[in-house]
């Protein structure tokens, strides 16, 4: 066996990154003990949800090359199943969530059988169309989904085993841990996929479907497998979102904007890499939150860089709050034009060019 590839393989699970990962995970598990700010926890939960969605999409879009811009369908189906069961059938969410997963996977297989016959832009458009059909149907089936009014739950019932209350869901902490665990699970799953036959086959399909087909890869089977894994985690993210926010309606959980946001997280972070979606989420969620609440302007003023009553200060305070979507759009354009491989790809390129300089 070739030494170079062997060492490369070992380097992939080398001790230092492994230690760092373990340390980071421990830190994340201990975080709620130190951080009392519920706002910070809220942002962390949103990041976890974003990591889960992004990584889930990444398996289908990043590894298998099927650029679905309709992932809101699985997110929404998961969220709706869990919430409908909880609200109207009084089925506890820890069962409902799995029902959501089952429905999402079933939905995925139906969608897959339709859309996977299409390639390239046609697949993208079909995935959008299917998700839109779900959204409009949810609006028009008030008997099932409560239509445009959405489903509002007042509280999540406590999780009990026997009479012992394990978690009460009164604070953010349980949601934090659930989010963290699922996020770790999805990253782990991505890693497992990447280092297995599945991963090789997914990537082969991404690179060239016809070539992959001729190498003995059953396209339908493996595309659907990727979609199923993707749908499972996207549905979990949806259920977590629904239970955490306590309110869902077609305009939020089945929205085209959500599908776009999922893809964006991956592309900004770095598509087809284990950590890309995580990087994307960690950057995008706080960034859009800071923009939304005008924190950047506030920080500039607080730090004394800009005087509050100066024209720039008033402009920032008054106008920036209107402009955050604009800035978001500009950022998107800039990243795609200048960092086409996302932040991770950009960093890799920087490191490579530095290495070249030193060599």
């Amino acid at each position, binding site marked *: 066996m070739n030494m170079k590839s062997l060492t490369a393989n070992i380097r992939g699970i080398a001790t230092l990154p492994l230690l760092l990962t373990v340390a980071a995970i421990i830190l994340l598990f201990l975080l709620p003990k130190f951080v009392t700010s519920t706002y910070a926890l809220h942002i962390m939960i949103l990041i976890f949800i974003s990591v889960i969605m992004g990584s889930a999409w990444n398996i289908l*879009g990043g590894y298998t090359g099927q*650029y679905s*811009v309709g992932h809101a369908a699985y997110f929404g189906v998961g969220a709706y199943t869990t919430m409908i069961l909880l609200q109207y059938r009084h089925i506890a969410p820890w069962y409902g969530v799995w029902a959501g997963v089952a429905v999402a996977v079933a939905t995925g297989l139906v969608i897959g059988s*339709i859309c996977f*016959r*299409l*390639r*390239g*832009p*046609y697949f*993208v*458009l*079909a995935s*959008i*169309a*299917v998700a*839109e*059909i779900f959204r*409009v*149907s949810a*609006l*028009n089936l008030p008997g099932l989904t409560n239509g445009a009014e959405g489903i509002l739950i007042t509280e999540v019932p406590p999780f009990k085993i026997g009479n012992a209350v394990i978690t009460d869901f009164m604070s953010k902490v349980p949601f934090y841990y659930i989010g963290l665990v699922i996020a770790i699970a999805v990253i782990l799953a991505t890693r497992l996929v990447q280092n297995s036959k599945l991963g090789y086959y997914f990537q082969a399909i991404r690179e060239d479907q016809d070539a992959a087909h001729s190498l003995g890869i059953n396209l339908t089977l493996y595309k659907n497998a990727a979609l199923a894994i993707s749908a499972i985690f996207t549905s979990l993210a949806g259920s977590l979102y629904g239970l955490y926010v306590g309110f869902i309606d077609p305009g939020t959980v089945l929205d*085209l904007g959500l599908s*776009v946001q999922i*893809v*964006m997280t991956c*592309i900004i972070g770095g*598509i087809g890499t284990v950590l890309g979606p995580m990087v994307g989420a960690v950057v995008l969620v706080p960034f859009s939150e800071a923009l939304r609440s005008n924190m950047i302007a506030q920080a500039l003023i607080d730090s004394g860089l800009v005087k509050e009553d100066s024209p720039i200060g008033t402009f920032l305070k008054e*106008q920036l709050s*209107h*402009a955050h*979507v*604009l800035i*978001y*759009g*500009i*950022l*998107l*354009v800039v990243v*795609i*034009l200048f960092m*086409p491989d996302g932040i991770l790809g950009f960093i890799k390129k920087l490191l490579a060019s530095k290495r070249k300089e030193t060599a």
Partner: protein
Amino acid sequence: MAAQRCGQEAHLALPGLEKVTQFEGAGSKDHVPGQLTSLLLAPCSYFLYYMIVFFQSLISGILIGGVYALIGIGLTIIFGVMRVINFAHGDILMIGMYMTYFLFTVFHIDPFVSIVITIPLMFLFGAFLQKVFINRALNALPQNQILLTIGMGLVMSNTVMLAFTSDYKILTTTYSSSSVEILGISVSEPLVVSFAITVAITAALYWFLYKTDMGQAIRATAQDREAAQLMGINVKRMSIIAFGIGSALAGTAGALISPTYYIFPQVGSVFTLKAFVITVLGGMGSIVGATLGGVLIGVAESVGGVYIGSGWKDVIVFILFLLVLLFKPSGLLGTSKD
């Protein structure tokens, strides 16, 4: 009061129907003339009622479809030449609407006349977008191109919002709500005019693409980019022109729809998806196909809205879209190889 009501109802031009509803809701009106005759007339009037509702929806569908067609043609040219899914198409249309609005309110130029100004301006705008942004991403991955155009759309709609606030703008002309009534079916005058303009523009475009050298070059580029390049066609220039034409058409559609619709920064999203459906339905790159697709979607929405429910219109459109994708992927009139 009753007399007044009846006087009003007279212009429904549906005497039979009128009596039937009165008969059904017996006593709801002050006088019930000839119950027996109305009973005899019932089947006939129901038929008339169905016919009128049907033709009403058919005609409005066709007329709206004309505008849809224009949007679709713009997109089909862009997609055909560059294989870029332009998610900013609706936002480009929105820019056209604002242009029309200001030409109307500031310079008092009639929206239908203003397209003479809108078309060249929008062409330049599109050419600029292509040269500065899209061009750099032509070889990028398709999902990156999608996000790029989404980002561009966000920038456009939010810049407009900062400049003109998010208020709805209504462009009211003297003819905005005029209609003529033909056999009990009302036909919107501005829509008829815009339909006529659409037909003229489509014809002109058809001539341009099929009868001029540049048109041929654009079509060659759309058919096979590499081959066109080998044949000495300046593919980059063709792309710029194609994006310009696409934008000009979207802008024109915006202008034509302005007198009967309303204008706000996020209005584009309504049309972007529709544009894709139309384009794919007709066959990517096919002008006649996009025209047919536009009218078909207009009619499907309108007729489907009546018989299935207006909330379901979009579902009907998307299902139609998926069916075409699956069973005739090249579109109704397309000859594309993939």
